[in-house]
């Protein structure tokens, strides 16, 4: 880390992730993944083309490459006196168009689609890079003094339109980029806590802690790019929450700068009975109240041993029943995820070219065993991926326990490789959307949480609703509509939906897409699902906040906002 725009330089400005990593179809029509960063990098994925063409009815002949045009950005509206005073503080800032556009969006489909078409709405008028907590205090004071709108920016991985500048905002909008506040300030080995600046990105935090033999264990799928402050502001959840907990379980102390001043607790007691927990006003506030600058987090010694695993079930119902039982016995591994049949097939399509005849022979044998010998229907079976962590002996014991439960539900152990590939895919799947967009295919994922007894119904109904809505809205080809259960809790589960469709023949694909997503969310709510498990509300889902938290609840949140930020300095208009 170091130079001001380090990440910006190695990342795409109109797509997901690193500039050097992307999928493309080579001259032979085979899919390849470029770069060196991932396990899949540099490999050929032979089955992807067929899957892609048969699933979406897409064709490699029909291409929609992005239009590269970053100059059509409106000139900044600057608040001169604010800029003058800011200069005197020495905090770096910029009103370069590229810097501003880079921070004007998250990764919702409509945001990326617009960028690829070279369309820019309202973008921040300038970007500021504070270096520490005190810098933030100064910036917030100045913004309040000069009535400038501040939008905190961490890793830019939002999928709730949270980073979109409100078009109706007339004040100068300043993007407050926390990326320079990326240090671990101290590690307390006696209490197993670390005090960290909130701008640190997930993978750096883990890497730096690993150097001292520790980890936080917080691994959201976006951990390569998302920041600690962003996690706190959205109530993030990590893949391994079963061992380490979600962000609300990990945080011991938070420091946030608001227009009213700094909010923090006076001690680091592990639990307090001091009225409603003020941390819970901060967590999930989505940048509407202030900027999180420093966080004390729990840390753990690095696990001695890690083991992946996978289980094949004859059908999704059995798979869900197994996960439910695992949750009931409270023996969930660090991570357990259940993919439905469509995703299983998708995962299959992403298998890289096998290097030896032997592996290919083995794969064939496995397939034969499962479908012919065990009688699993290849169009119904589904797979759970597992990740165990801890000391070796206990991992093996734990593994046996979970496989024993799985066996009761007709599950067959399907090897470490399948499991590992499943988790690897999590990181590359976002790159795939960019590939789809090159060929008229758009898609998105969204999530919810739901009580156990509703899991199967919600999966079925939402998937069907998506198919139905696509048909009604004139989508010419059947969409990909699939889901997976990604987290288990005592009283329910987190469910992820993916949907994508070929938009050839549609005049306004993004609008169609938005209508379908809207309908899908309505369906989720009608089936007892929550508005969001960990993506947050942003502006994308705020129309449902009142029914979600009741009018009184909304009033409570509003009154907090009114007290903390009466002039709406943190004016991203998320949530409320």
């Amino acid at each position, binding site marked *: 880390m170091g130079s001001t725009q380090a990440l910006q330089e190695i990342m795409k400005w109109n797509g997901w992730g690193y500039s050097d990593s992307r999928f493309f179809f080579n001259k032979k029509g085979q899919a390849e993944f470029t770069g060196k960063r991932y396990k899949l990098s540099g490999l050929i994925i032979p089955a992807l083309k067929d899957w892609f063409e048969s699933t979406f009815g897409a064709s490699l002949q029909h291409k929609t490459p992005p239009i590269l045009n970053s100059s059509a950005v409106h000139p900044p509206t600057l608040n001169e006196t604010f800029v003058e005073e800011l200069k005197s503080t020495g905090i770096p800032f910029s009103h370069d168009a590229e810097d501003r556009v880079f921070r004007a969006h998250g990764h919702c489909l409509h945001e990326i689609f617009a960028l690829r078409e070279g369309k820019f709405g309202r973008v921040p008028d300038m970007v500021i890079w504070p270096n520490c907590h005190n810098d933030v205090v100064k910036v917030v004071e100045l913004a309040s003094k000069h009535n400038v709108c501040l939008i905190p920016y961490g890793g830019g991985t939002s999928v709730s339109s949270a980073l979109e500048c409100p078009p109706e905002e007339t004040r100068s909008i300043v993007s407050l980029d926390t990326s320079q506040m990326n240090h671990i300030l101290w590690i307390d080995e006696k209490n197993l806590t670390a005090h960290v600046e909130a701008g640190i990105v997930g993978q750096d935090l883990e890497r730096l802690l690993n150097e001292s033999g520790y980890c936080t264990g917080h691994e959201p799928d976006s951990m390569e790019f998302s920041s600690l402050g962003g996690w706190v502001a959205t109530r993030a959840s990590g893949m391994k929450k079963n061992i380490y907990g979600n962000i609300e379980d990990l945080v011991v102390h938070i420091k946030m700068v608001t227009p009213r001043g700094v909010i923090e607790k006076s001690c680091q007691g592990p639990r307090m009975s001091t009225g409603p927990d003020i941390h819970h006003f901060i967590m999930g506030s989505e940048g509407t109240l202030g900027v999180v600058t420093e966080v004390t987090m729990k840390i753990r010694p690095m696990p001695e041993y890690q083991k992946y695993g996978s289980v094949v079930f004859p059908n999704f119902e059995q798979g869900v029943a197994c996960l439910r039982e695992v949750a009931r016995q409270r023996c969930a591994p660090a991570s357990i995820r259940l993919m439905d049949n469509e995703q299983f097939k998708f995962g299959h399509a992403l298998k890289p070219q096998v290097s030896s005849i032997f592996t290919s022979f083995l794969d064939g044998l496995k397939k034969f065993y499962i479908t012919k010998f065990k009688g699993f229907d290849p169009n119904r079976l589904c797979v759970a991926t597992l990740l165990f962590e801890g000391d070796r002996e206990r991992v093996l014991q734990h593994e046996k326990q979970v496989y024993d439960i799985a066996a009761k539900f007709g599950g067959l152990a399907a090897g470490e490789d399948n499991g590992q590939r499943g988790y690897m895919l999590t990181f590359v799947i976002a790159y795939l959307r960019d590939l789809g967009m090159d060929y008229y295919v758009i898609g998105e994922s969204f999530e919810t949480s739901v009580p156990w007894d509703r899991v199967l*119904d919600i999966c079925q109904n939402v998937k069907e609703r998506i198919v139905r809505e696509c048909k009604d809205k004139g989508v010419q080809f059947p969409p990909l509509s699939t889901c997976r259960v990604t987290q288990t809790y005592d009283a329910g589960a987190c469910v992820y939906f993916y949907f994508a469709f070929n938009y050839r023949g549609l005049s306004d694909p993004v609008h169609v897409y938005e209508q379908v997503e809207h309908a899908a969310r309505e369906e989720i709510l009608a089936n007892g699902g929550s508005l969001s498990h960990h993506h947050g509300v942003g502006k994308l889902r705020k129309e449902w906040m009142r029914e979600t938290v009741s009018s009184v609840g909304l009033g409570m949140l509003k009154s907090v906002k009114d007290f903390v930020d009466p002039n709406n300095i943190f004016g991203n208009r998320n949530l409320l």
Partner: protein
Amino acid sequence: MASKAVYSHRDPMLKKRDDFEDILEERRNSSDLRYALKCYTPVVYKGISPCKADALTNMVLQSSHLHYVISQVSKETGRAVDDVQDEASAILEEMAQRLQLSTIRFFAFTLSKVFKTLFRSICVNEEGIQRLQQAIQEHPVVLLPSHRSYMDFLLMSYLLYTYDLALPVIAAGMDFMGMKFVGEMLRMSGAFFIRRSFGGDKLYWAVFSEYVKTMLKNGYAPVEFFLEGTRSRTSKSLTPKLGLLNIVMDPFFKGEVFDMSLVPVSISYERILEESLYAREMLGVPKPKESTSGLFKARKVLSQNYGSIHVYFGQPVSLRSLAEGRVNRSQFSLVPRHIPKRPSEEIQNFVNDSAYMLVRAQEENMVLKPWVLLASLLLQNHHQSQAPGQKPGMALDELTERVVWLRDLSRQFTVVPEIQETLYLRGDVGPKESRSADTTPEEELLSRAVIVLSCASYRNQALHVFLRPALLALAIHAAASTKKREVFYSFSFLRNMFSNEFILVPGATVQDFEEACYLLVKTGALQITQQEVLVTERGHRTIVFLTSMLDPFLQGYQVVCRFLCEEATEELTEKQFIPSIRRFIIKHLLAGRLRYTEVLSSDLQKNALAALLRLGAVQKLKGVDQGTLKVNTVMVNSLEDTLGGKLPTQKVVVARL
């Protein structure tokens, strides 16, 4: 008429409707045995989880819903859980169907023989069949046939078998169970049996509702039941019963199925098998208990001709689209779905409105046979000829002219509910006079009444077509002035008064009024200005016809009111109501103070009482004097006067009602 009386599929008026295909034709030309043994491979629901009838009972008994209710009942009554569990199994045993293809094949064979003897043709709209086939694959299906005859459900299964469609499971009343052998046969052809009343029996309700829902959710088979709850004795549609509709809709509300198709089916009989039985029943001869030997005795019907049957499979209604914007399904998010809960008002209203909508859909797709129009005219003529100084009967030419006129009128009111057919003469029914010396006047009256009521049941088949315009015609007649507002008050009063008698969607007064106005203006019978409603010169005939159509009901309700004012004593109970009013009416009829023999119909009397109870003019006492009727004489009197046009319908009256 002769030139028009040719049966034709090509009639341009029929174009909005599907064509009918006679399925008996093939039966007359090919082997019934081969048909009964044909390869039967219906398409099934795509989400089906195939299971046997036994597995089904297990699923029901192991459901969390039933577990919950069993433990609740056990706690409340202090009985052992096992004991209650056994009771639940017994209930299920008594209820469950045991659909078997072999039984269906047996029925396919025998019914082919029977149908060919009884009926000239059985016509089915094949496009409806195709729509149904599509629907069955997509979502769980609920079949909702109209109910006029015991024949209905056998006929339905027969048709579905004929068209290679999934055989339904059918909710049947317990009365069939009395017929030992037949009951079991019906059970094996898909019937499941429900007790007629189980008001407070939580356990029964739980077993029953879980059983129906399980079959529906798993796509085991289409579920069939009769919205009207029982056979209509009058050929008018009955006010829908909501219990089963509530049950079948529940899985959708709770997100257990994505959607469900509700398919209204209209079965129009040219002549109903139970025709004269119904008339006798309504005149006080109680209906014979269903028994197997009775069935055999009834075989003499085989020697008669019952004309043709038209079965119209309506457009499947998607429950999801129906509920869109009306039901907030997230209301079920806060209580576990297996815990039974009283439906919210929102749901109740929705179910009620849907039920009416579906019964209206049944009505609209009924086929009107020419005989129906003829009966309407003959009946009116019969009544008019009762008046002193009139010659009975009508010249055939005149009758023909009138029928053609009426046919044209009905076509303007509705989308072709009628079939062109050669009218053939019938010798067995009709207001014919027969006198023999050794009958008392009362016996003679009753035997005449049987004929009139049978005839009325034909007229009733056309009532839904004319109902709204007829209510308007009556309202114009009764209103104090031609002011539109007055006419509307009068319309709304009558509509409210008769809403137990006819299918009138609750809360749709304004729509009905507008529809009636539109139709009568379209036919040129009315001129409607901003302020006034005027009958045109040539509209007179229409208005007179329409008024006369409802006149028997108007008179009937007045008589009921008069009876309650004059004769109701302190002790009149609900049970005694029908016999005493019957005596009262017979007296009046014999004395010549009443024109309509039709008023003797217990159906009309019950509906009138139900209306008065609903309006609060009569109250049913609770407690010691349970079932005693308490009459508010002042109110009943004023209702009678308003019905008779002696009192103007005032805003106040309407508002209060």
